[in-house]
């Protein structure tokens, strides 16, 4: 059961984000990137399936600062192969990334066939669309997103998708298929630094050149800014007992107690 996992990095929001001089993109001077959290879950789901069914897990990603760390960590966790697409600007719109991935998947020998293509269902910088559905469209494979559980049997994957109100839906998807992962069955596993370092010494990250693709037209950012915070809570000061008293007053005034 072979699996291809698409991963990308996004701005790390632990850092303060600032708008760059052009007024419509992020200031990259202090930007740090981190693996998209949903992609981390997609990787974990792939590894869980590998633990159960065997097979190979291949990673495909765009080159970016610190991407090697991400890839070696994933390899140390149990992925078998990592391919990095070089020669691209690190900041791309999601649909441009989709086109690059689609070309590379189609033209690079050895990436296909796989039974499943997993990627995070969404990322915090997905402005002009999500990743998985257009890739599925290119491949001609079925797609489902917001997946929180995957079981594989023969030629069919059974997936559970989240709706709202705690309700979920169960689907059968014939493989090969593309899945947009919301959460893996278990939280992403820990891999010790020593193993990552060992991976750095024993595994090479393969590289391919990025194909030239046209950006998708139709969406253009005019301006980016920090949100105007519409309001802020009125803060109640004091020790817990004092705050409790104040809350009590509020509630009484509103007839809630």
């Amino acid at each position: 059961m072979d699996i291809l996992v698409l991963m990308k990095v996004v701005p790390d929001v632990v850092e303060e984000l600032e708008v760059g001089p052009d007024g419509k993109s992020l200031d990259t001077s202090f930007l740090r990137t981190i693996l998209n959290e949903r992609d981390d879950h997609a990787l974990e789901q792939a590894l869980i399936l590998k633990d159960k069914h065997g097979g190979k897990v291949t990673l495909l990603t765009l080159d970016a600062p610190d991407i090697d760390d991400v890839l070696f960590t994933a390899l140390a966790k149990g992925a078998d192969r990592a391919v990095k697409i070089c020669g691209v600007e690190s900041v791309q719109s999601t649909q441009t990334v989709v086109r690059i991935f689609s070309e590379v998947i189609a033209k690079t020998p050895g990436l296909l066939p796989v039974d499943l293509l997993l990627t995070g269902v969404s990322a915090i910088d997905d402005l002009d669309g999500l990743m998985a559905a257009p890739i599925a469209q290119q491949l001609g494979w079925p797609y489902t997103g917001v997946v929180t559980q995957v079981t594989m049997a023969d030629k069919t994957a059974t997936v559970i998708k989240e709706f709202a109100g705690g309700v979920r839906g169960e689907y059968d998807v014939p493989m090969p298929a593309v899945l947009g992962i919301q959460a893996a069955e278990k939280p992403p596993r820990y891999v010790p630094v020593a193993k990552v370092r060992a991976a750095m010494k024993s595994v090479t990250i393969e590289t391919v050149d990025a194909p030239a693709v046209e950006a998708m037209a139709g969406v253009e950012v005019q301006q980016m800014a920090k949100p105007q915070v519409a309001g802020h809570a009125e803060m109640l000061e004091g020790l817990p007992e004092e705050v409790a008293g104040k809350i009590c007053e509020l509630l009484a005034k509103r007839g809630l107690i």
Partner: protein
Amino acid sequence: MAGNIWVLAEASRGQFSEITFELLALGREVAGQAGAPLEAVLLGSNARELAQKLGAADAVLYADNAALADPVPESAAAALAQLIKERQPAAVLVPLTNISVDVGVVLAAQLGVPFLNYCKDLKAEGGNLAATCVLYGGKMEATVTVSAKPAIIGVLPGARSADAGRSDKVAAVTDVAVSLAEQKLRFKRYLDPAAGDVDITKQNILVSVGRGIQTKDNIELAQELADVMGGAVSGSRPVIDQGWLPLTRQVGKSGMNVKPKLYLALGISGAPEHQEGMRGAQTIIAINTDAKAPIFNIAHYGATVDLLELAPALKEAVEKRKQGA
């Protein structure tokens, strides 16, 4: 800008979700600005009665097909694609919910156009659509021009008030035909969370706990407080993921949407997905030791005291008042 403004209505098991009406309210404004009609699109099977409730739209396009009975995104997307090809709308507003987002992205993929994501506001001006989109988990907002045709726009819950999109008018329903091939994806069944004792969407008072509650045992403190106040305990996603509260108590995008009179958020940071589920509460009081927690942006009152001390103190204070009264 030529073409109508469409709203993709979202109905699940015979019920419209609130966001359908929120989008109608937004769509009405945009249609007005664009000088174009507002049409609602309902895809389903034996759901014509539902279509009549969408009176806020100028017209309702109702496509009935057995393949549309179950929530299979590819079917809905294929149906929409056909309708779009026939009728050439200018824009399609798609609810950004777990149910509809897949319809939107598959549709956009089939048409080869972008899917504008995280939109919280939209207007038509100068022949184009101008959207405000939320990025980086809420840390930035982008003003975006959409010139794609059609413009497929994913709209976040809470963009407008649902009441502004409700109408007593009986809608003018047009039946439209779509022919759908067999889809590869097969919907098997709904998995409902184990029947809980409490329906948190019907509570007036919710004491909601997040990661700050730290341990399962501490939830008792929240329960005692809720009991004294005559409310119920709910939680954010991390608490449910840990198994400390059942799924029926989850508030947020994948959980319940609640509008109680009082929402007391204890140790909840206020991620966008959680805010989606509770921002409509009448009074929101947030307790979090992190003064920068996003919850404080939507709460009416807040404090940075330790919730493990506040909960028992508040319980005492409320008890005293109730005895005194």
